[in-house]
């Protein structure tokens, strides 16, 4: 099983994702430099990590979209390959058109780093099968632009196809406004594409997947991926 972690200039969660795939999950993992745009078909899963690609200048993800590797990620995803975009990775996947909607500035207009609770909305994806439906998990967010928005038609589509994978919730699982850290429409924290092979999420599961950090709730994402790849 082989993971590829994309490195854009300004990526800064690349080491963290590499650490999880390689040292915590124990799988072969490589960094993929954005200028080395070659076929990704040798990988079983591509991780687009968080950070500030191109400094988030202009708009998060807006410049990374034009990097040579992004075309390869699109080809890989359209061919059915597993792609997970976390935080800035989610922003890039949206800008690249692999996921619908847009990520706007947080409604507080401030960067927010804190633990939030997520309710599992769809556990029938390659990224979430290790959780149970409705389960509430604690995962940190760290972003300035995580305020998810989509127009009504897109939202309807997302809901109809069960593409909302996680929503911000209270510890009891209520998807209330008070539990919404950034103003995301319908408390959306993460979505997948219709084919279920591309996931984008603002929270950072790689930051809560080890006992020494006091929280292993995020490990299920990576376990789900490995389970899916083992079975397929």
């Amino acid at each position: 099983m082989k993971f590829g972690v994309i490195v854009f200039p300004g990526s800064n969660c690349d080491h963290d994702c590499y650490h999880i795939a390689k040292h915590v999950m124990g799988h072969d993992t490589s960094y993929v430099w954005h200028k080395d745009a070659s076929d990704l078909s040798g990988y079983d899963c591509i991780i687009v990590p968080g950070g500030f690609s191109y400094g988030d200048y202009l708009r998060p993800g807006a410049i990374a979209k034009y990097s040579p590797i992004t075309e390869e990620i699109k080809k890989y995803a359209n061919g059915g390959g597993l792609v997970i975009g976390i935080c800035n990775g989610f922003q890039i996947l949206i800008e690249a058109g692999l996921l619908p909607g847009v990520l706007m500035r947080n409604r507080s207009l401030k960067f927010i780093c804190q633990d939030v609770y997520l309710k599992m909305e769809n556990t029938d994806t390659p990224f979430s099968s290790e959780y149970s439906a409705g389960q509430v998990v604690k995962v940190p967010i760290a972003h300035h632009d995580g305020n998810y928005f989509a127009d009504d038609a897109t939202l309807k589509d997302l809901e109809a196809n069960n593409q909302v994978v996680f929503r911000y919730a209270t510890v009891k699982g209520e998807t209330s406004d008070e539990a919404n850290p950034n103003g995301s429409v319908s408390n959306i924290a993460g979505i997948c594409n219709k084919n279920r092979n591309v996931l984008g999420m603002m929270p950072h599961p790689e930051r809560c997947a080890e006992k020494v950090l006091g929280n292993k709730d995020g490990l299920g994402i990576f376990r789900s991926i490995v389970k899916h790849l083992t079975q397929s």
Partner: protein
Amino acid sequence: MAEKIEITDEVIASHGLSKEEYENVLNILGRKPNMLELGIFSVMWSEHCSYKSSRAHLKGFPTEGPQVIQGPGENAGVVDIGDGLAVAFKMESHNHPSFIEPYQGAATGVGGIMRDVFTMGARPVANMNSLRLGNLDLPKHKYLLKGVVAGIAGYGNCMGVPTVGGEIYFDDCYNGNILVNAFTLGLVKSDKIFLGYASGIGNPVIYVGSKTGRDGIHGATMASEEFDEGSEEKRPTVQVGDPFTEKLLLEACLELMKTDYIVGIQDMGAAGLTSSSFEMASRAGTGIEMNLDNIPRREVGMTPYEIMLSESQERMLMVVRQGCEDKVKAIFDKWDLDCAVVGRVTDDGIMRLMEKGVAVAELPIEPLAEGAPVYHRPMERPAYLDEVNCLDISTLSLPDDMNAVLLDLLDSPNIGSRQWIYNQYDHMVRTDTVTLPGSDAAVIRIKGISKGIAMTVNCNSRYCYLDPYKGSQIAIAENARNLVCSGAKPLAVTDCLNFGNPEKPEIMWQFAEAVKGLSDACISFETPVVSGNVSLYNETKGEAIYPTPGVAMVGLIDDVERHCTQYFKSAGDQIVVLGKNLEDLGGSEYLKIEHGLVEGPPPALDLELEKAVQESCLEAIRAGIVKSAHDCAEGGLAVALAECCISGENMMGASIELDSSGIRRDALLFGESQSRIILTLEKEHIDKLEEIASEKGAPLEVIGEVGGEHLLIDDSISLDIKEIHSAWQSAIDQRIA
């Protein structure tokens, strides 16, 4: 051309050079300097770069120890942590720029300190900051706080370096002059440390990073003057940060450092190209011939004067082995960064700056870099000390309602929750942060080994105002205490000494006393000073700040799984105070808030007792019997207990009975006696703790038990923990809105 301007007395004065200093310039050169040369002398001999007022005193610091790999004098200090690894760290001020333009001032402060650390070959893994602002009721200071915090966040978050801890105080003495001190710690293999030496005659001098622009010219000189009404006109001397470029520079430099091409490397901080080139050549005893035509620049028409004095950010100067130029360039090309050979190392000890084939400056390096003036400025004990150190507690009325006092204190911006601040900092990136902000010390793990690093930054400047010597000792003691509360053994110190105008004998006296206090305490705790920074002239219209010797301390945890945090863990746990309650009200937050008094003497400090308490705490944590440990600081025992109740994820009450032994109620609850730690442990482990404490000579008292929904202290305090939490939680938020 600027170089053709005649050097008049006005020009000399506007460069911040005194008559005597200019005489010295003439002696060194044996001729009149040209404008460029004068500019170079001006920044190299500025207080900021030359430490001319402080240097004589700083010699007193203990700087050696078996753990020290690199002491003061380099870009950062380096301390051994075993397993072939070391930590490089330093703290630096960016006070003046942050007051003028808070976002960029603070952002570039963070950028600068990170460059100081990665220029040593260390990857920055943790940031902290120490902030002092004025009264939060003033709109200006709401604006400054928002800007400073956003600037720190904007830079550190983009770099992917977690901001894991810090401290902030608000006081009127900072109304005209705020303090922004930034700390970075990096991790490095102990045999792969890079230093700033321009060695090897004929080796190429290479410039990498951002292009040089006209920003920040004479920033170092600005940082060496008092403020007046016109200071805001100096906004153009504040640099603008580009954290994205610095992130690329970091990755490119670390990639290059895996090779053996580099001979020496130094960041271009204050005084930019001038100080980096002079310092590197001075350390190596060499000269440099630099071709200014090759310096990458942002705009056309820049003069040599502007190029040499620019403080554009995100730039590095390095000397590499001859013949490696192309291989070095390939790495910077990969990261889309400028990389230019701008000169050669020479053997004549001269800095020769060439423009279009003509030498535009020729300066002897040694006399300029090492021959900077050293002042033994006159000192005099300030008269105010007698007026303020006269507290007679018998004249203080005892408050009727201690509950109200406790809530007032928790609502003080000096005590309340700092969450509004640290939630804007990414404190988890790199996935090493074991103890998140909000406990006594930040703790990070080191991937691949079992050890952890703890770090903390602390200074109560009110104590330092009342007694600079004792206040400084307390700063060291409290940092060490915070570290042992996390389970770490203190290793070493970096400091950032913020004071007023050193030309005033009273300020110089404060400075000297503070340095003595820090030195004596560092010797006692065996924590040498390995790096640091001095920021003087922190005055506006003649009003100096409180003496603020900011101290950051780094400690080592052998087994990071055994780290400890401050908040209560389980109902039924026994609550113990290690140390002794005294009748100390001087300098306390209680005295300021409830009685409107800033009077001393500050709390007593007995270094032997302090060490006994700290050693007992550390040994008990290492023995695995401690569930929580919290230092008693501002607000005293009652505030510390309240923080234990509410700062964890699950809030928990406590029932406390204190042995008052004749101490006034307010002093017992809110006095700030030093050398006290609140521990919790299971009942069955009390005997073991008593055994450890008695062996070390530390007094202890079992004062109560964790549990319930209230904090109950004798018949003085009875509060619902939700009410306590809400007062504490909104202390900063509600004042900023």
